[in-house]
């Protein structure tokens, strides 16, 4: 039984599919003849044109879920669709907060397993082989499902390149959320957005990240200033996120974001495998660390053995002098 139909869970933000979804739709189009997407909330009608452009033929629109968290209602709508006989061979889910919730609940509802942390997929005959980082990304495991379909894969951002194929807008079909009792009782009371100036961390061409070597929350100001001068985004290691110096949204790594900028500048970061897995796909890496044996140097194209408190101020001055 070959791979005929692939679904993509098309999470949206600000009314448009998120970039990981476009990566997954592009990949899906290379895996199977039929690609379909599932949307909810404000992402539906407006998303149909973009999703079609990248290769989706049909969009199943769950519609407005009000203030509910998406996990329960979207997974229930999907399960109902699948149980009605509309079965994809594969379901690709972006590794986001809501994506993981939906995949987990769907898996329990359908009694089908799910494979997470996927960074690559390959169709070989009737099988799909997935690759995922284990031990913090130091090793890559190749896995496959052996049971019934759909095979649910939760895929990390930036695993594939998104490419529009000029397809026509996808046809929108409404699907219903079945009556749900207690499982759907969580309500969002209010939403809070952190202020951000400059590009988004996972889309920026330059990322300047700071770690514990900065010494204090104040030291992070140098990272922010350098990022701004290079029109980049500031990032962070988990150590300083856990220490409360910067918000979680800055975190790069296994439990944070995956970034692949043209240049990644690591300042006072040791280079633990869990950090490396989120940034070693960068095209160029510069590392500044006072310990010449720091593991970060093993992935750096340019390593500077030095004190961030000496190198960064001079670098900032030099760049300011040029602009």
């Amino acid at each position, binding site marked *: 039984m070959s791979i005929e139909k692939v679904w993509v869970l098309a999470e949206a933000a600000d009314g448009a599919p998120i970039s990981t979804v476009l990566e997954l739709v592009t990949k899906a189009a290379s895996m199977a003849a039929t690609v379909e997407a599932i949307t909810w909330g404000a992402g539906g009608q407006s998303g149909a044109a973009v999703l079609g452009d990248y290769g989706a033929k049909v969009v199943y629109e769950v519609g407005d879920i009000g203030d509910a968290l998406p996990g329960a209602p979207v997974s229930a709508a999907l399960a109902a669709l699948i149980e009605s006989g509309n079965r994809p061979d594969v379901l690709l889910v972006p590794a986001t907060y809501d994506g993981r919730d939906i995949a*987990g609940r769907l898996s329990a509802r359908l009694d089908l397993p799910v494979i997470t942390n996927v960074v690559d997929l390959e169709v070989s005959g009737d099988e799909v082989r997935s690759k995922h980082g284990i031990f913090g990304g130091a090793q890559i495991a*190749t896995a496959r499902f052996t049971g019934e379909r759909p095979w649910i894969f939760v895929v990390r951002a930036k695993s594939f390149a998104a490419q529009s194929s000029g397809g026509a807008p996808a046809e929108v079909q409404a699907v219903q959320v079945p009556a749900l009792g207690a499982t759907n009782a969580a309500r969002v009371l209010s939403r809070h957005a952190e202020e951000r100036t400059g590009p988004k961390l996972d889309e920026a061409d330059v990322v300047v990240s700071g770690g514990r070597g900065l010494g204090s929350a104040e030291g992070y100001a140098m990272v922010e200033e350098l990022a701004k001068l290079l029109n980049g985004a500031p990032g962070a290691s988990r150590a300083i996120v856990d220490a409360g110096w910067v918000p979680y949204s800055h975190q790069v790594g296994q439990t944070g974001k995956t970034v692949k900028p043209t240049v990644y500048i690591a300042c006072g970061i040791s280079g633990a495998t869990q950090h490396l897995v989120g940034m070693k796909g960068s095209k160029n890496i510069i590392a500044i660390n006072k310990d010449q044996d720091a593991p970060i140097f093993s992935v750096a194209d340019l390593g500077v053995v030095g004190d961030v408190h000496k190198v960064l101020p001079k670098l900032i001055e030099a760049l300011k002098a040029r602009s």
Partner: protein
Amino acid sequence: MDMNVVVCVKQIPDPTAPQALDPATGTLVRDGKLILDDSDAYGVEMGLQLAEQSGGGEVTLVSMAPNAETSGLRTALAMGAAKAILVSDPLLAGSDALSTAKVLAKAIARANPDLVIAATESTDGYTGTTPVQVAELLGMPSVTFAKKVTVQGPAVHVERQTEAGFDEVECPLPAVVTVTAGVVEPRYPSFKGIMAAKSKPVDQLSIADLGLTAGEVGAGGARQQVVDVSAADERKAGEVVVDEGDAHERVVAFLEQLKIV
């Protein structure tokens, strides 16, 4: 109101020690001593604080682990949890996340909790799906990625991390909540706590005790397979310069070459 909290705690091989997969089964080797997953220490602390604030509640730990391992549980009992349910069965080897969730859900149901706490993801497996699978199996609502948790009357209030910042979420109890690192600062077990933990009850169950069969869980129930494990692609190290007061110039030149400046 007394609040009974179940905290899921995973016992894992020490992540700072070298780890390996069993070449025959492709699953993590777990035969050495296991410790409390650091990620779950936050859940234990959160559970203890919420139970204390409720006046008279207590924390029950639920764990699934091979070889009747309890050392990680003892750490959490020493922090202040009242008791533990441990599911240990040779038939559980090779369980995937869904099988694990089936086992945990059955064990949790026995404790009849008002609130179930787990971590957003475990350190060794990090699938991050087990807790929502548990919630679905128990028919409970769930709120994942909590960075702040309070209980107000019959509902839990959560600041849930989002891409943009955070959402304030309200959810009626009973519910499953997953907590991030930093939600609270885990306490260190006191000497008294460590002594007391030795005599706290640990209820050990097999899968038969839970009414499950080998076909449903463990390797018998797993429908996914690791076919290969290999080292990740290595990036090559490039030039390394030692700062003599002028390394910033080298960085500027590098950025110029890339046309960033």
